[in-house]
Structure formats: C-alpha cells, structure tokens
C-alpha cells in the first residue's frame, strides 16, 4: 500500500487530495466526501483509517478537501453545494486517472458529504454504489441546525440572542454572511442546501445505495430513513452502533470499527 498526496487542478484552482493505493488493486475505487466545517475535522482520522482499511482490502481510495475547507483553495464563504459537487466529480475523475485498474466507482459520504456525494452520483453514469453515513436527509432542517450554532455562539457571547433565525436568514439573503464556528456561511450554500431532499436525489440514482444510521445506542432506525429505504428497491438501511465521531466526544476516535465492517461488507471486500 502507498499513499499519494497532491493538489488536483480544477480550472486553475487547487483541490487537496490523498490517494490510497492498494498493494494489489481490485477494480473498485472509492471517493470519500467529508462532512461540513468542524465536523470534517473531528471525523478526519476516522476517514484516514477507513481509507487505509479499504486500501488493505484492495480498494483504491481518494479522499479530498472540498474547496473552502481543509487545504483546498477558496474561502469558505465562496464555496457552496455546487462547488462541492464539482469537486466530487473532479475527485472521481482523478481516481480513475490514478489507477487504470479502477472500473467500478463508489462514493462514501458523511453527513453533509452525503449530500454532495448523492448529487454527484446522479449527474454521472459511472457511480455504481453510494454509501451514506448518517446522511443529511432534509437540507432545510440541516441548515436550521447549522444556524443554531450561531445562536449558541450569540448566547455564549452576549448571554442572549441578538439576531434570531429570521434575522440571520435575512442577512444571508441580503448578501451578508453568518459566522458558524468561524466559517462564514453565505446565501448560495444556504439556499442550495435548503432545497435538498435525500429522497428526491436518491430517486434519480440508478445504483445501489446503503443508508447507515449511526447511533451510540441500539435505537431503532429513524422512521424517515426506514421510509426512504422502503421506497426504493436498491436502497438498504442499516443501523451501526458508533459514537458521533464528527463531534467533540470523550473517546478519541481513530477508527470506527463497526462502520468499517459494514462499509467493507457493502463494497464486497470484507475479509
């Protein structure tokens, strides 16, 4: 196995990527799409470990930073959902180019990364599988949860909310930005994400999809995920017991063992 890190070129802009090459490659290649903002950082080591485990199983894996995040170019405020979909497509092409053995492509997406992965998969005809870890189901709900982080920040700073959600949305619509844990959220990302519905996007995807609910307890799957999986013959749902490693939690999460097992099995490369 080897790892190759470099900047990909997207019309003159740099997208940072790491490619995990297996010692003996199978025809399978996986692109991993990370979560948004700080969630990406907390989950980073799980992504790295997963990529290494997949490469050990013969899968060529490409991880990358969306523009506006990580080591890639652009300010966060100049990135949106569309740029993330473009970046995902670039990553898929780069993965193919890096290893001519790769024939079958799969996308793995965590949380908001699942949104970009799903949309990218529907725009191409070469993605065979989607594996969505704790995916965002309703983009508008998700954006509200993102705005809630700003409200919490206001509470911590002023001990009260100075600008409520409506005011924050009005600011976005007026061309301003809203600070989310240090990232400047702007209107295009807010609007495009708010219009996202996983069931609509999945309906356009002809391949196999696995929805993975991640929960610390043995809670039954969420009803919305059950309905989503039931509505599509090639969509399955599985619940995995893991801590929410995309947040600051007490354990140091380098590897999500149960999630790794499920992912390897779904990709057909489990030992």
């Amino acid at each position, binding site marked *: 196995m080897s*790892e190759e*890190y*470099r*900047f990909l070129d997207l019309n003159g802009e*740099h997208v*940072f990527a*790491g490619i995990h090459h297996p010692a003996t490659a199978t025809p399978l290649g996986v692109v991993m799409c990370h979560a948004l*903002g*700080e969630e990406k*950082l*907390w989950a*980073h*080591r799980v992504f*790295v470990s997963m990529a290494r485990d997949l490469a050990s199983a013969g899968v060529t894996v490409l991880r990358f930073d969306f523009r506006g*995040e*990580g*080591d*890639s*170019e*652009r*300010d*966060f405020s100049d990135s949106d959902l569309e740029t993330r979909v473009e970046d995902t497509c670039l990553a898929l092409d780069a993965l193919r180019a890096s290893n001519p053995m790769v024939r079958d492509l799969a996308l793995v997406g965590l949380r908001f990364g699942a949104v970009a992965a799903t949309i990218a998969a529907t725009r191409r005809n070469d993605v065979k599988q989607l594996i969505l870890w704790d995916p965002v189901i309703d983009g508008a709900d998700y954006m509200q949860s993102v705005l809630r982080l700003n409200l919490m*920040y206001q509470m*911590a*700073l002023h001990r009260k909310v100075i600008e409520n959600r409506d005011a924050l949305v009005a600011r976005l619509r007026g061309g301003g930005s809203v*600070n989310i*844990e*240090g*990232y*400047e959220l702007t209107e295009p990302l807010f609007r495009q994400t708010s219009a996202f519905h996983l069931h609509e996007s999945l309906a356009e995807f002809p391949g196999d999809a696995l929805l993975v609910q991640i929960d610390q307890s043995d809670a039954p799957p969420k009803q919305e995920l059950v309905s989503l999986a039931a509505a599509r013959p090639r969509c399955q749902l599985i619940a995995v017991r893991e801590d929410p490693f995309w947040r*600051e*939690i*007490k*354990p*140091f999460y*380098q590897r999500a063992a149960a999630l790794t097992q499920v992912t390897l099995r779904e990709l057909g490369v489990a030992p």
Partner: protein
Amino acid sequence: MMTGRYVEFPNQEGLPLRGILHCPDKETEHRVCVLLLSPGIKGRVGPHRLYLKLANRLVSRGFHVLRFDYSGLGDSAGEISERMLVDVYTSIQTGRNVGDTIAAMDWMQRTHGIKRFIGSGLCGGSISALLAAETDSRIESLLGIGLPTVLEGGPENWARILTQQQLVSLRGAYLRKLANPRSWLRFLAGKSDIRSIWRVMKNWAFRTSRPRKAPNESTPKAEVDNTNPRFAGAFLAILRSRRPVLLVFSGADRLHAQFRENFEAHQAVALASLRNLYEVHVVRDANHVLSDPAWLSELLQVAEQWLDVRYQTRPSVAP
C-alpha cells in the same frame, strides 16, 4: 486562500509526517520559518482553518510557514494508543509532539537551509512549541495562542506524569472517590486508569519516599494541583536564554487566568528579572478558537506588531 505546497518528511521513528509548506517571495524572505503546530487532534488546518488564515498573513511578511500533522493524527502515519481524548491532550501537554517538532526543524534545515524558527500554534500547538523550544534553541521565539498552563481532565488523567509533590496532593482526591459509587462503576467497567491510581496510591501505601521539590520550581499547594509539571521549567528556560515570547489569550476562556494563577503567581521571584522578555495580550470576549473575524484580526495585528519589531517585517503584498 493560498494553498502552499504539500510536503512529507520522516519523524524520529521514520514515520512519514505530512503537511503544507508556505514559502514567501524570494525578495522578502527572512529565512525564518514559523512552525504553526497542530492544536489537539484537529490537525494542520486548525479550527475553522485558522492556520491557513495565519499562514497567508505570515507568508506575506516574508516568513516561511510549516504546518503539518503529528504522528497518529491528520494524514500522517502512526497510531495513538490513548483511548480518551483527554488523555491525548494530556500527552500533548507533556511533550508527545516534541520529537516530531524537532524532526520538522531538522527537515527544514536539511532541505531548505533554514535554521531559525518561531514556535507557534493554538493551545496544544503552543505547548508543543514551548516544550520543543526548551530542548532546541533553533526555536528563537515563541508566539503562543491560548497557551495552556494546566492539564486537562482530572487526577485519573494526570497521575502518570505528575511530580511527587503533585501526587501527594492527589491522594486525598482518590481516597474521596472510594465513597463514590460512580467511581466504583467506572473502575469495575475498566474505564479507570489503573496505572495512574497505582502510582498515586503506592507512594502512600508503602511510604517509599518523601515528597520532593517539584523540578518546575512551583510552590506546594494545599489543594489538588493541576499545573502542568513541565510548564514552568520550560517557560523559564526560554526566558533565561533571552528568547522573546508573545502570548495571546482569549478573554472568554480560563487560560489567561490559569497562566497568572498557576504560573506567574508562583514564579514571581524567578520572573522578576525576566518580565521584559514576554508580552501578554488578551483578546477581549474571544472564545478559545478565535472564531470571530474581529478576534482573529486583533490576534493578527498584535502578532504582526510583535514580529515587526523583531524581524523588521513589512507585508510584500496587501493581505
């Protein structure tokens, strides 16, 4: 946002460390590299890409900037044995990353001929810079952001690395835990750090040694002392070798108060002749990660003024 150049170099165990090197224009370069050392476990970009924002400004003032992932973190090779985040933090605060930091300087010197470094970073990054500077004089100044003086967590997380004096103060805390059912549940579930408990209690049980004076020159305290046992020694060593220090703290977290209470108050005599070598600035209301652009702007302004005095820097282009 500038992206820099991907770099890879071996640490002292031969494991590849991965990072990004930002190089200034040839005409403005000082041949001084700022090491932006990774905070905690968030890796070389820092929270909200703080390190990219800092790197862009520092490069425009003629500094090389190297930011990389420590072994076991980010994209670098290696594994971390600690299972709890607090234990990872404790290990960082007591020197886990010093070897990797020295390896980074060795690599910069070998490949770029740069021998002068400014140690910097947020929180865990700044303590790594401090501890590396204690043993490596190539770090000629320290720009610490949210430098932690005390250890994270509780006695069960520290006992492996505390001084004898501090261990004595912990004994009472452990004895009180005997009456706490939750502590027993934690113990029986295998979540307690048995090695730490043993280290604290054996001293008491066997009375093997008298408490000795802590090497950090700290004054004994009556209550549990969570001061990082390596802090004072390292900080004083840097000042005594006439290396300047700028510390920037966030007003809304406890780190500045802890620096005053757990370090300055205890080291008043030792610091009397060294006080002019370090400056402290507090960004009012700022949170730990300086997430508001105004707080970041203040940090940059203070840091640049401090660097201007020492390195005669001026921006090569408008940032």
